[in-house]
């Protein structure tokens, strides 16, 4: 490897060094090593000649200026010469604009308790802003009910198509597979006891009452809830929401309520489809694995699965839809003026919506159990 020091000469108190090669931020370390190796005993003056340096950048200049300072502390004067004026200009620029480390504001060290306090306060403010959002939402809803002509039927219909009808396929497929898996797992256990026919009871109640509404809600939270956040967030960044406001169009009327109402209307329909597909999936496995014919399955289904289980599943729909749409839209409105914020809020909207749906489902279970339904 070629040395970065071309020549060095030393008389009693003066050391002259001639550097060469490409002295840039990629190889400052190499130069540093070579310069640190120099014997400086008795030296009072060091002169570095940069004339043979082919490339010289600000990182190298910063290193040399720092070295100059270091030598100064050791009573050694470091000077630079170069036949290339650009090198000297770079050095001059760095000497002029170099920031001392104390002038660069370092991020303040935070304490554990301060962090907890700040995070608690931020969450508290977040909660307040969510309540404010709900308040405005209910006020707008009331305005809607008092002035039915303001109901934006076209937007609601559009959203029903976008968030509901277009989601039918994925909801149906997911539910079919869930029905299939549940029946398959149960069949294995039931066969052991010769209780094959009870697969109908188990499928009927678990799918109609719990699984279909829950699976539908999770799919919709991932599909439509996240879409609400991303759409409204992007509209916020591109100032479309501001444009609406300056034109006197209330975003709650135009964007928020149509989406919430559409999802509340379409959710029971999606749950109904999920019910059917889940049962069909279960029936398919029952037929193949447990030799329960379709006719037998349906007869037993009619006998043991009460209509109330179907209704309970459907009733949950609008509540789940309200939670998913509200959280999705709220998160969209929380998007700040940067693209990263869209991703952050979209993720949050899906997680929060699924969590809220599960909590709501648990509350329904407790309520229905206590009511004896």
């Amino acid at each position: 490897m070629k040395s970065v020091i071309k020549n060095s000469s030393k008389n009693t108190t003066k050391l002259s060094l001639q550097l060469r090669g490409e002295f840039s931020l990629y190889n400052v370390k190499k130069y540093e090593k070579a310069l640190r190796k120099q014997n400086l005993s008795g030296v009072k003056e060091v002169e570095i000649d940069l004339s043979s340096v082919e490339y010289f950048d600000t990182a190298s200049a910063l290193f040399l200026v720092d070295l100059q300072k270091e030598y100064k502390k050791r009573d050694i004067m470091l000077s630079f010469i170069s036949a290339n004026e650009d090198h000297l200009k770079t050095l001059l620029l760095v000497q002029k604009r170099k920031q001392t480390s104390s002038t660069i504001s370092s991020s303040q060290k935070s304490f554990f308790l301060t962090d907890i306090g700040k995070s608690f306060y931020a969450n508290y403010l977040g909660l307040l802003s969510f309540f404010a959002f709900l308040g405005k939402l209910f006020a707008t809803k009331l305005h809607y009910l008092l002035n039915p002509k303001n109901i934006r039927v076209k937007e609601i219909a559009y959203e029903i198509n976008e968030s509901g009808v277009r989601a039918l396929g994925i909801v149906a497929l997911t539910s079919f597979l869930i029905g299939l898996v549940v029946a398959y797992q149960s069949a294995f256990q039931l066969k052991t006891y010769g209780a094959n026919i009870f697969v109908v009871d188990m499928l009927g109640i678990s799918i109609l009452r719990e699984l279909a509404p829950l699976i539908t809600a999770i799919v919709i939270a991932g599909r439509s809830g996240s879409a609400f956040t991303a759409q409204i967030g992007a509209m916020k960044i591109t100032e479309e929401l501001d444009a609406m406001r300056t034109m006197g169009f209330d975003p709650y009327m135009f964007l928020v309520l149509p989406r919430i109402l559409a999802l509340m209307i379409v959710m029971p329909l999606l749950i109904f489809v999920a019910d059917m597909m889940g049962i069909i999936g279960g029936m398919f496995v029952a037929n193949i694995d447990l030799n329960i014919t379709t006719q037998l399955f349906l007869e037993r289904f009619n006998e043991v699965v009460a209509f109330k289980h179907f209704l309970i599943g459907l009733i949950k729909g609008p509540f789940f839809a309200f939670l998913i749409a509200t959280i999705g839209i709220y998160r969209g409105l929380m998007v700040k003026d940067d693209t990263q914020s869209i991703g952050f809020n979209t993720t949050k909207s899906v997680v929060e919506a699924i969590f809220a749906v599960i909590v709501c489902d648990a509350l329904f279970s407790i309520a229905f159990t206590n009511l004896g339904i």
Partner: protein
Amino acid sequence: MQKTVIKVKDVKTIFDNRIVHNGLNLTVGEGDIYGLLGPSGCGKTTLLREMVMLHQYNGGSIEVLGKNLNGISHNDAQKIRQQWGVLFQAGALFSSLTLRENIMLPLVEYTDLSKSLMEEIIKFKIDLVGLKQSDADLYPSQISGGMKKKAALARALAMDPKLLFLDEPTSGLDPISARDFDALILELRSLLGLTIVMVSHDLQSIYDTLDKVAIIDQKKIIYEGSLKNINSVESQFIKTFFGKYNEQ
């Protein structure tokens, strides 16, 4: 005597304990093309947003088209919103609607005009801002930045406003399009008798279009008046910003 369209009195704005405006006062007269100028971060766009009720100021008062914005009722706010047009920096066209639908939206919401008359109005506004009729069915994502600004201007003019707010109308445009846009603004003022308030950094545009300016610096308005006397005030911003132009 010239009628006052906007009156800003002692307006104070605070962002996270940081004072942005500390007692701003200005008056925009009817028919003026009025510029809000100042260094970056001085709060020009914030003041514009306060005028159009997108941002709440912390003190003082703003009167727009004869209505005081402090505690303005919903109905009054809706009324004045129908009397102004706002052009945002990036156009802010509704991306899910075509240019025609964008321009038509305020007409559909606020009027009971027949469809054919609406079509006539849209065609007229599209022509007025210098777009082609064939552009009407394009979506915002299918047109250039300059066209977006023109389409957004057409939307802002849809309701024949008395007052037009422009936020950096020539930013992001090439010099030729920017000068065309300036000419368009002047033409619109003379054709429609508009009062225009704009935020701009484009020196050529400032000299070509503005009748009156307010310079915001150090949280205050350091100068209000015509560009002729701009150098009467001792200010580093004025020296740097207008210096080179005046030397030419």
